[in-house]
């Protein structure tokens, strides 16, 4: 069965049933409906038969018909096509129709054709896309993230609006490209961007980079960028997607946190307070772009009470408060350190006074022993030596008495040396030190050598003797020394006492806690030296040989 053009047209029209998304109609010179598809007739809520041979004004009630017919009339008059979007409500559902009205020449007739497209779905999709874009844009703006993609093959770039804003470039300007991006980056930082991009194109791996941009208004912003290359079928990188986030604030916060932490670290490292305060003021001045006088006022005021100058934001105030806190705690710590130092000094003075008093008492007892009992015994010795035996057995008896006296003399001398060598008063430091040294060496079983520079004696003799005795005793007790050297020299106006042994050494941690562990000798030696403005140290020997060396420097 063959069908003519009219039959085909009729069949086509019939196929456009109600609900179809295409509608067709043709109007004659009087704008009456010549033919109309059921789908288009349905749009105006009537059947095709009710519209055929009638104008739209006649067929459609009210304003709808008039508006539609006005379009037809305009096209009929101008013979130029017209496109308009027609909203419609169909069964309570909002629909959109794209109405295309155009002149139709058919033989010698001048007709007007209407093709209507239901664009409800595409409009919805478009709206959804638009809304998504808007939301993305809002999100990007809020997060200060701009996105981009680079079609490598076509060298076409797409930047999101936010990326334009971040770089300060004009969205209405020429389309962006790699060079445009580089122009926004300070010269010295461009090479890094080129390098990561070149590498990404070569190896196809994602990358991250942090770089500064200078916006046209002169502001410097720090961006963190990430690029994700996408390979094509050939395996080559065809596209790179990426984003760049403005981390200026984040970087600033990090920088300020580091600055405050560095100040805190310096405060703990014992930097003098005025130096620390100057550094703090300088850091704040640089960070906030303020002059030092203003910064000084800000730091001096309590953070809550601070009236921030114009242009100083909440984060700036927080930074100032953090720095002020570092200074305040440093000041508090210095105060408490000063108190501890004062207490320690007072304690040291007391220890020194107590030990000096003890020395005086020892000396007094020693002198009393020397001048009294010792001389008595020596005189008695002479008396006994002059006695002649009167009877048998007297001789042995006298021998025993003599021996007892001699032992008593020896013991008293030992005790005197322990207490205080009376030699000091006559024989001076060398005599007294030799006496002590030989006594200690004998008792502990080590060899002892004394070296004294003549100029060094007569200045701090009592203290030198006392310290030397204590340190020699230590060498025997803790170090297990075999040889001890005691050397007294003068160092300018000061006297230097050195006691070196070849024993097992004195671990530093034990030294630090010497007093706590009951090593009164070392601790008290330090206190006594420091109490008169001198110094004291114990450690490995200067000459590198194994053993310990204690050195006291006593001002003359």
């Amino acid at each position, binding site marked *: 069965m063959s069908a003519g053009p009219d039959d085909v047209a009729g069949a086509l029209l019939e196929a456009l049933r109600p609900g179809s998304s295409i509608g067709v109609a043709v109007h004659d010179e009087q704008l009456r409906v010549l033919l109309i598809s059921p789908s288009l007739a349905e749009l105006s809520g009537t059947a095709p038969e009710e519209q055929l041979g009638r104008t739209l004004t006649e067929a459609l009630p009210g304003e709808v018909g008039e508006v539609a017919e006005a379009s037809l009339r305009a096209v009929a008059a101008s013979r130029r096509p017209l496109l308009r979007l027609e909203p419609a409500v169909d069964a309570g559902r909002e629909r959109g129709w794209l109405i295309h009205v155009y002149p139709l020449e058919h033989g010698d007739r001048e007709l007007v054709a209407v093709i209507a497209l239901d664009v409800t779905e595409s409009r919805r999709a478009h709206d959804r896309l638009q809304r998504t874009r808007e939301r993305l844009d809002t999100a990007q703006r809020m997060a200060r993230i701009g996105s981009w993609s680079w079609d490598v093959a076509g060298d076409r770039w797409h930047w999101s609006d936010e990326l334009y804003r971040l770089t300060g470039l004009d969205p209405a300007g020429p389309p962006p490209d790699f060079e445009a991006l580089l122009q926004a980056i300070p010269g010295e930082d461009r090479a890094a961007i080129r390098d990561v991009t070149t590498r990404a194109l070569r190896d196809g791996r994602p990358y991250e980079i942090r770089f500064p941009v200078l916006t046209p208004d002169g502001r410097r912003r720090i961006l963190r960028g990430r690029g994700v290359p996408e390979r094509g079928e050939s395996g080559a990188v065809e596209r790179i997607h990426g984003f760049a986030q403005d981390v200026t604030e984040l970087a600033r916060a990090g920088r300020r946190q580091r600055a405050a932490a560095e100040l805190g670290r310096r405060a703990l490292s014992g930097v003098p307070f005025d130096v620390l305060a100057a550094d703090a003021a300088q850091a704040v001045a640089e960070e906030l772009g303020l002059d030092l006088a203003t910064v000084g006022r800000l730091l001096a005021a309590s953070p809550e009470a601070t009236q921030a100058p114009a242009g100083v934001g909440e984060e700036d105030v927080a930074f100032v408060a953090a720095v002020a806190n570092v200074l305040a705690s440093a000041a508090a710590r210095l105060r408490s350190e000063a108190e501890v130092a004062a207490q320690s000094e007072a304690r040291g003075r007391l220890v020194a006074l107590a030990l000096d008093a003890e020395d005086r008492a020892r000396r007094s007892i020693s002198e009393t022993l*020397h*001048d009294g009992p*010792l*001389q*008595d015994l*020596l*005189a*008695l*010795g*002479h*008396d006994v*030596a*002059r006695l002649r035996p009167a009877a048998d057995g007297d001789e042995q008896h006298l021998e025993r008495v003599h021996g007892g006296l*001699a032992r008593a*003399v020896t013991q008293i*001398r030992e005790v*005197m040396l322990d207490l205080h*060598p*009376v*030699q000091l*008063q*006559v*024989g*001076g430091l*060398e*005599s007294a030190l*030799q*006496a002590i040294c030989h006594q200690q060496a004998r008792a502990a079983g080590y060899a002892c050598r004394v070296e004294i520079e003549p100029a060094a004696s007569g200045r701090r003799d009592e203290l030198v003797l006392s310290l030397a005795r204590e340190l020699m005793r230590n060498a025997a007790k803790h170090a297990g020394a075999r040889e001890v050297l005691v050397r007294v020299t003068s160092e300018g106006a000061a006297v230097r006492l050195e006691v070196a042994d070849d024993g097992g050494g004195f671990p530093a941690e034990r030294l630090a806690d010497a007093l706590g562990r009951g090593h009164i000798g070392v601790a008290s030696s330090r206190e006594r030296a420091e109490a008169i403005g001198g110094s004291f140290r114990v450690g490995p020997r200067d000459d590198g040989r194994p053993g310990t060396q204690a050195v006291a420097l006593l001002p003359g």
Partner: protein
Amino acid sequence: MGNDHPVLNGQGTGALTRRVFIADDHEGYRSGVARLVAEHPSLEVVGQASDGEQALAGIVACQPDVALLDVRMPGMNGIEVCRRLQAEGTAPNARIVLITGTPDPVLSTQAAEAGAVALLGKETPPNTIAAQLLAAAEGRVGWSVE
């Protein structure tokens, strides 16, 4: 004080008596030594002192042949007295023997440097002390430590 003169004293015994000065702040020890010296046939005590100042003055006044000085005395010690005598040359013929309750080598060196001819420990037996004094008085002692 004529009987203190060695020549005069020596006339009676036919031997020369050496004149001894004794200084010690311990009365018991000093008197013991004085008795020892007095009992010695060739020695006599010409003066005693109980401190350094008295010793210096007494030695200058008595011009003994030998002086036994305790090292440790109040005021001025024996070594210092010895030094002063040497420096001032006020008793050029007096030999000085020092004696101490606490002898040690450093003291010996200092005693020698001060011009003493000997340093004795106080526990030295009486006879030895007397012998040392006599030897010193006669110039037979160079230097010794007991």
